[in-house]
């Protein structure tokens, strides 16, 4: 053994061990859920289930409130994404292209959504919603989901619009295109990757949002993560694992589809000025 270590080099070995720890740390919990979801019986201290089965899948899928929560979650995520596109993309275009008074003030006001600890902000909103009668309403839940996405839904597209060279727009104008036509055929398509990333991020963020919904949407608006809270306490861990996979699947599918577009640079532009 010893000659092997020496030939590979101590540095490589340490690197390998550290990375293994790292991979186990991040992949371990997810892998564990994947194994649990397909296990029939798994008693302590077996390292692997001694019986595999799909029975928990049919159990979970047959529960009515679970099926309802799935459609509710997707409905809310779709509303949140649509609404934030309609509200934020025009603002992003204005920030990137138009000169207007107090531009910097407006741009930086969006930082406020991330300048407060989340649960504190949610409780403040709940106090307000309680007064306005928005507790336990669809509008209340949608509004609380919008908080998290307002900033990157504005900032990522702003960065994307800025990256479109003004010269390209001008040359389109020169050959006689109207401003609207320029926006539709030149600016928008070129900024589309950024807008798409922000939208995907928004959709996923809304699907995953648990804390705010838990505070504002109880008892009628049980989205998937909220149902997950009760599954964790009420059902065996295999049922929880099955539902975890159902909840994570849309995330993984959307991420894979948008894989080419998602990069550290694009995402980082949603949280800081670069």
């Amino acid at each position, binding site marked *: 053994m010893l000659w092997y270590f020496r030939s590979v080099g101590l540095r490589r070995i340490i690197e390998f061990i550290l*990375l293994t720890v790292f991979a186990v*740390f*991040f992949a*371990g*919990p*997810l892998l*564990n*859920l994947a194994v649990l979801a397909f296990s029939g019986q798994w008693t302590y*201290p*077996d*390292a692997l289930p001694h019986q595999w089965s799909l029975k928990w899948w049919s159990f979970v899928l047959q529960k009515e409130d679970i099926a309802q929560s799935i459609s509710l979650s997707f409905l809310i995520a779709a509303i949140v994404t649509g609404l934030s596109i309609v*509200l934020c993309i*025009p*603002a992003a275009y*204005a*920030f990137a292209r*138009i*000169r*207007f*008074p107090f531009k*910097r003030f407006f*741009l*930086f*006001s*969006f*930082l406020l959504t*991330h*300048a*407060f*600890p*989340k*649960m*504190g*902000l949610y*409780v*403040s*909103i709940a*106090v*307000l919603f309680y007064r306005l009668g928005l507790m336990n309403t669809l509008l209340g839940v949608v*509004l*609380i989901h919008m*908080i998290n996405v*307002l900033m990157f839904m*504005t900032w990522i597209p702003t960065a994307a619009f800025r990256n479109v060279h003004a010269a390209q727009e001008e040359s389109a104008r020169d050959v006689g295109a109207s401003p609207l036509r320029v926006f539709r055929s030149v600016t928008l398509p070129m900024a589309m990757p950024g807008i798409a990333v922000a939208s995907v991020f928004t959709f996923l963020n809304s699907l995953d949002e648990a*804390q705010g919904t838990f505070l504002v949407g109880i008892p009628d608006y049980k989205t998937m993560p909220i149902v*997950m*809270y009760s599954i*964790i306490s009420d059902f065996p*861990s295999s049922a*929880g*694992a099955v539902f*975890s996979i159902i909840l994570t699947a849309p995330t993984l599918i959307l991420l894979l589809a948008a894989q080419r577009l998602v990069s*550290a*640079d694009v*995402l*980082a532009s949603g*949280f*800081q*000025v*670069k």
Partner: protein
Amino acid sequence: MTKERKQALWGLVLVTPSFLLLLVVVVIPIVQSFIESLRNEAGGYDLSRYEWLFTDKGMRNNIWFTLKITVISCALVLLIGYALALYLRFSPGKLAGWIRRTYMIPMFIPGVIATYGLMNLLGNHGWLSRLLLPFGVTLPRIIFDEKGLIIANLWFNIPFTTMLLSSAIAGIPGSVIESARDVGAGKLGIFFRIILPLSYKTFLVALTFVFMGVIGSFTAPFLIGQNSPQMLGVAMEQVFGVFQEREQAAAIAVFTFLLCSVLGFFYIRSMAKEEAARM
């Protein structure tokens, strides 16, 4: 109307809807909850709700506990995040390529799911303890303990921090580092003299996000924290939802704002400066 006036008007029209939304979901709630937190039980206005935060023994423990977990988590997250970002930048190997492709995935995994996975993996009789059993290793209590909370915070925050720092470090030209190496700078020297100063602002952004993320966290402490002391996020939810004391909950919320206000201020200011430099 001149062209400029028209443009200015257009800009304001385009920005107004999202700004109004911001007012409704952030500014008004915060102002309102500040006012609410000053209301005492008799209906008058004073600081009694805040006094309770520091006189109630359980609440005082919660505050210390939250601060402790937050500071430890921040230190570990930033240390590991920097190390990882540097490794990804300077290692050409296949392994680094694999990590580069996958390290952002945890950012997109729902918090409930990740927490649940950690519960099953690290819990009493969990998978890890089963796997380590043949080697005669027994794990200490991790879940329902502060260790579990810190581990969950690492899980949630390291990918995000690494992402921010990677994008900052990628902006440092390789030639600068090469030339420092040529004149004989060591690895630590390069880090402290070049990389840290050049990525310092992003470091601040990352610190702000992790600090606020941990103080304002709910899911992980709700599911794997112990009953007492609690993180402030859980305590707040209980005071609001279970005890129905909205004024008291508002006071705790405002208190967490104060804890984060210094960092939040620096974050906004450094962003504003950066933007001013490029406009």
